[in-house]
C-alpha cells in the first residue's frame, strides 16, 4: 500500500496530521489512547468518532500489529455534548 502523506489531516476537530501521529508512535505510543495524549487526536468535539479508525490503521501499519490490537478510546460521560445548565439540573 502506498505510504499516506504526512500532511494529511486525520483529526479535524483538533487539526492533527498523519505526520504528527507517526511521530507520536515513534516516541512510544502503542495504542489509540497513547496517540491521543501525545497529539490531541480524538480530544475534540466529536471525541474521536471520526478519526479513531484512521488512528488505529496508522498504529497498525507503523508497528506491524493487527488494528484490533491498537485499543479504543475510553468512552466518557456525557455521551453527547450537554450544556452545563442542563447538567446542573440533573439532565444527562
Amino acid at each position, binding site marked *: 500500500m502506498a505510504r499516506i502523506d504526512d500532511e494529511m489531516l486525520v483529526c479535524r476537530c483538533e487539526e492533527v496530521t498523519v505526520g504528527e501521529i507517526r511521530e507520536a508512535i515513534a516516541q512510544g505510543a502503542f495504542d489509540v489512547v497513547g496517540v491521543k495524549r501525545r497529539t*490531541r487526536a480524538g480530544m475534540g468535539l466529536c471525541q474521536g468518532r471520526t478519526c479513531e479508525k484512521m488512528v488505529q490503521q496508522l498504529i497498525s501499519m507503523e508497528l506491524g500489529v493487527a488494528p484490533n490490537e491498537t485499543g479504543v478510546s475510553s468512552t466518557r460521560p456525557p455521551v453527547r455534548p450537554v450544556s*452545563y445548565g442542563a447538567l446542573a439540573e440533573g439532565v444527562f
Partner: protein
Amino acid sequence: MKTYDIIVIGGGMMGTSCAYYLTQEGLKVALIERGDIAGGTVSHTDGYIGASEKQPGVDSMQGAESMKLFDEMRKTFDYDFEYATNENDDPIGFVYFCDSEFEFEKAKEQVAKNQALGIEQYAVDPYILQQLEPNCAKDLTGGMWVPKDGAVCPFRVAFGFVEEAKKTGLLDVFTRTEVLDIKQDPNTKAVQGVVTDKGEFAAPKVVNAAGCWAPFIGAMVGMEVPIEPRFGQLTVSEKTGKITQNRLALEYGYYLTKFFQDGERPIDPLVKAYNVCLNITSDITGNTVVGGCRLFRGFSIKSEYRIISAVAQRGIRYYPMLKDFNCIRSFAGIRPFSLDHLPIVSDVEEVPGFYMACGHEGDGITLGPITGKLISQYATGKPLQFELAKELAWSRWQGRDIAAYKKKEEENSKALKAVEEAYLASLEK
C-alpha cells in the same frame, strides 16, 4: 540481564521527572512502566502549578522551588508542555473566590503566613476580584490572588521529561512492563534490581515512583507505605474561548476541603454530598476545564453523573455564563494521598539503594520537577536543593503509629460517606 545505575518504577509525573534529572547527573536509567508513559494519575488531572495550594512551610516552599525549575524547563525544553503565560510572558496566576466571611478570614491567614515566607500572595476585595475575573459572580465576599502560580499540560510535561532525557542517550524506557518484585541482598537488605513480567533488570538503586500504587512497591521491600487513593473528577467543555481571563480560578473551599477544614459552605445538598468545590480554567486549547471534588472511592476512576451535576452547579455559581456552554466529557482520577499531607521524597535508611518519590496527593503536577531534582541529589550524594526538603524524608514515618493515621483517614472517609448516604436517602423520600 540488563544492568543500570538506577531503575525508576512508574512512568508518571514523578517517574519521568526522576528519569530526567538522573540522566542529567550522568546516570544510566531504566524507566519501567506497566502501561504507557503518563497512563496513570498524570493523565487524569488538572495542570495547576504553584505554591498557593499548599500549607505554609515546607509544603509551600517545595512548590516555590518547583516553580523555579518549571521556569528553567520552559526555556530549555524543545518539547512544548503548554506552559501558560500572560502578555508579559509571566505565569498566569491563580484567583481564589471566598463565598463567606469564614473563608475570607482563612484566606487572609494563609496570605499572611506565605508572605512571611516570601511567597507573593494577596487578599483582594470584590472590586479587585472583578478586575481580575470580569466574568465571575458579582456577589462574592472576597478572594485571594497569586500572580506567580501557573498552568501546564500535565501529561505533556511527563512526555517532555522522557523526550529530553532520551537526548542524553542514558535513558531506556520499558512500557507495558510490570514490576513484580525487588531483589535485595539477604544480609544488608540493599537493593540489587527488579523482577518484571518481561524479565529481570539489575541496578544498585531503585526508585519507587508508583503514585497510588507505591504501597505495593514498598511492600516488596518490607515497607508499610501510608498512601491512599483520593478521588477527584473533572469535566471538559467545548471550545469556549476565555471564560476565565487567562487565569486559574478556584473556590477557596477547594483548599480548605483538602485539609478537612472547610467549615460550613453555603451550598446545595448535592454539592455537599459529593464534596464538590470549583476549580476552573479556560486553557490554551480554548476548552474550559471545570472540576472538582475530593472523595474516597478506593482505586475506582469511574466518572459519576451526580458529581458532574454538582460540578456544573458549582461552576455556574461562580461563572453564571457557563450554563450555556456544552460539556463534552468528564473524567476522574485518584490522588496519591500521603496520610500526613506531605509527599515522601528521600532515600530509605533501612533499605540501602531504595528511594521514595511518591504521595503527592493533589500537588503532583506542581511538585514533579522538584521531586525528580531532589531524588537525583539523594542518588548522587549532592546537597539538597533547599534545606527544608529534609522534612519530606521517609524517616519522619519511623516510630510513628501508621495505624492511628489510617484510622483517622478512615473516619474522615466515613464522615464523607455518611453525608452522601444521607443525601441519597433524602432523595428516596
